């Protein structure tokens, strides 16, 4: 095996390969930052370009796009409370508060370093023990997935400050998730005869609306009401001079390692994607932290955890793709298409027949993280300059961008209305102190939660007894109960009416 890894190195000597990788990371980061353009869309649009390029350029380009795309969403998540991609939703929890405090540069640095570190860890592991890892992929069927999602929701859905309001938000999210065709595909629920609602409320426009519009509106109203525009108040955000210090980075290393491992495992399971890894990592770190109240106020760990996890998923997702030809997510589905178009048939024969290329690519995944570091810094610089544009020009520009983003998710004008409606909902919730993240989490995961539960019941012929034979699922559900209990009991009772400081 060492021999084949050495063979793979020969693949890396060509500078054009690195150029392609860097180009991919750059475009990916920008596409990731732009709301409404998901990493998948960018990859699907650019994949055909690679069909005309030789393999050694095309695939590195796509891999770079993948890496950069998953990180890129963090940029706007931190600067505008607007995740550029789903993967960065959790990054808004601590990234945006930290930016509002004037430490945007530090937050951006943390997101980049965490992403690079996370992916470095997971891709190195991938390189060394890919075979055994693939066994995990087949172990997660509907019961396990159901348990995992319940676990994720419990971990994050009940955030510390006001559990009752978080619960209400979470329930609203679940209700919104029921709109559309039911997961097993029979009935139309609450679609009011509108065709566009058949697949439910589109998530990206809703997310943009609920997270970003209230912020834009409050900035706008502040300035209009204040009327004066002093020199310091002109820019949207004070970015801050200092980046991340070594000490701060090292303090977060345990967090990043744990999150990366989590991300790797989640990536290996075909049905799960970056979002779930990021959410789970965040929730886990918060529970494990000696000072959980720091989370949500701008804790660096709160940025490190989701960013390390979501990038770590990339390497994990390669496992089912390379060993079974099963796409880990939509992005790997596009990658599979690109592989096949270059006469590389993903599957067990791939490594046997093309060892040089395959190990070359895996090495690229590992070493490419350093490229991401460099290119990422450049991208950060671009966006930081952009954010320094005076607010009266920037806010309208962002508003246009946000509308375009909501539209381009599905080429649908209806989605723009969705975004606006959710914007109103978001403002209302914010005004009365209901946290928005639990809503988004249950909204995002609600469909799958119901689907996996239904499938589990189908397989068990209507009863949950099937769970008795599924240790992983049982263990996850048990842990969920423990987490719930732990969150609720020390308080004695829910503290109703406690105002939150957001």
């Amino acid at each position, binding site marked *: 095996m060492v021999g084949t890894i050495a063979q793979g190195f020969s693949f890396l000597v060509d500078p054009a390969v690195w150029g392609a990788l860097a180009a991919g990371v750059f475009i990916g980061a920008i596409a990731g930052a732009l709301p409404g353009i998901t990493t*998948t869309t960018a990859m699907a649009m650019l994949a055909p370009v690679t*069909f005309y390029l030789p393999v050694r350029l095309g695939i590195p380009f796509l891999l770079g796009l993948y890496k950069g795309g998953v990180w890129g969403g963090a940029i706007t998540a931190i600067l505008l409370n607007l995740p550029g991609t789903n993967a960065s939703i959790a990054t808004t929890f601590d990234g945006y508060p930290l930016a509002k405090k004037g430490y945007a540069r530090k937050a951006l640095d943390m997101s980049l370093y965490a992403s690079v570190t996370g992916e470095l860890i997971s891709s190195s592991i991938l390189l060394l023990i890919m075979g055994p890892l693939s066994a995990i992929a087949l172990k997660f069927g509907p019961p396990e997935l159901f348990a995992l999602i319940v676990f994720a929701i419990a971990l994050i859905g009940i955030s510390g400050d006001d559990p009752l309001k978080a619960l209400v938000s979470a329930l609203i999210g679940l209700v919104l998730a029921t709109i559309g065709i039911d997961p097993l595909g029979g009935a139309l629920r609450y679609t009011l005869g509108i065709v566009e609602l058949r697949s439910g409320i589109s998530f990206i426009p809703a997310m943009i609306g609920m997270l970003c519009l209230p912020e834009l509106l409050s900035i706008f109203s502040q300035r209009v009401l204040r009327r004066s525009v002093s020199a310091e108040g002109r820019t949207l955000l004070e970015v801050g001079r200092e980046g991340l210090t070594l000490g701060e980075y090292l303090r977060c290393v345990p967090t990043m390692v744990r999150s990366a491992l989590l991300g790797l495992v989640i990536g290996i399971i075909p049905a799960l994607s970056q979002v779930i890894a990021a959410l789970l990592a965040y929730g886990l770190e918060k529970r494990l932290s000696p000072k959980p109240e720091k989370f949500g106020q701008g804790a660096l760990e709160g940025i490190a955890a989701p960013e390390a996890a979501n990038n770590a998923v990339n390497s994990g997702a390669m496992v089912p793709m390379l*060993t079974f030809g099963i796409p880990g997510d939509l992005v790997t589905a596009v990658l599979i298409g690109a592989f096949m*178009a270059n006469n590389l048939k993903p*599957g067990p024969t791939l490594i046997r027949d093309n060892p040089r290329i395959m190990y070359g690519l895996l090495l690229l995944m590992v070493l490419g993280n350093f490229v991401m570091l460099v290119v990422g810094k450049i991208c950060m610089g671009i966006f930081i300059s952009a954010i320094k544009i005076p607010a009266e020009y920037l806010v309208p520009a962002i508003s246009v961008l946000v509308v375009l983003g909501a539209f381009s998710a599905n080429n649908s004008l209806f989605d723009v209305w969705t975004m606006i409606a959710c914007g109103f909902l978001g403002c209302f919730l914010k005004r009365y102190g209901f946290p928005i993240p639990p809503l988004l989490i249950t909204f995002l995961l609600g469909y799958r939660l119901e689907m996996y539960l239904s*499938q589990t019941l189908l*397989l068990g012929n209507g009863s949950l007894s099937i769970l008795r034979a599924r240790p992983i699922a049982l263990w996850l559900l048990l842990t969920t109960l423990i987490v719930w209990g732990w969150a609720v009991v020390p308080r004695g009772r829910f503290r109703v009416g406690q105002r939150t400081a957001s």
Partner: protein
Amino acid sequence: MVKKLITRSRLTAISAGVCVFLAVAVLALGCKSETFPDKPITMIIPFSAGGANDMMSRPMVPLAKEILGQPLNVTLMPGASGVTGTAAVLQKPADGYTVLFVTEGPMTVLPIVQQVPYKRSDFTPICRLNTSGMVIVTGKSSPWKTFNEAVEAIRKEPGKYAFATAGLYSTPHMAMLALENEFGLSFKHVPFDGGGAANVAVASGDCHLGAPNLSVAQALLKSGDLKPLAVTSEKRMPELPDVPTIKELGAKVSVEPWRGIFVKAGTPDNIVKILRDRFGKLLNDKRYVQELEKLGERLDYLDGPDFQRAWDEGFKYWSDVLSAQKK
């Protein structure tokens, strides 16, 4: 606060400019062009990025200007298993500048089983691009070695065996319904979110049978995690020469869902003819066929009138099968 940016003279100049612009625009719109096509053609694909239709449309784009005469703009409008995008085509004028590239599901099956905002007669077929059969598979640890063994076991205990599909009325589900109809079987249908998840369920043993497309299942077949029992295509698949077709095993039909191109009904006949000729040329062009094969698909072209017949026949068959299913 605002400096005098907009002086009276500037305002007059701007207004004059706008008027001239509007006048020219109106005149331009008023002119009807004699030659079709004289602006780009939009192809709507009612599925999401990275899907099979999307991938198969890409190689069309570089050839479009040369063969169709105008660039081809591919627009993705996913939603509701293809219903959203299909319905969207009907919002455009019937002038041939909007074509639909869709699979059999939304055009044949969904109109039968769901309330969809369109009818088959709302569309005129341009041509069929390909057909793909499915592979009936079972998991590595399954005791069945042949299709007939499976059939026997399933007949003994109807409704017990779980059949994994990519979703309600997806192509694997259609295969399952055909099997039930042709062989007198009854399965427990377990729909998943896409072919990948369904395959995992069969490979891990959670479900007993599945019917993925060959391209989706190839890797698992090679690794042995899935065992092929039969194929639903008309002829045996070259990649699986030892696997019998369901017709050989006694079915009266083969199940090969198609992908095809349509326009809105009511498009003038001469425009339909031009589209049929030109798309026919494009799809049969060597360069396109090569790209298609790289994606693991094969061309199975049928021109407009033949395609209409095939579509009608398919519709009749599925109406019978599905009405037998409806409770």
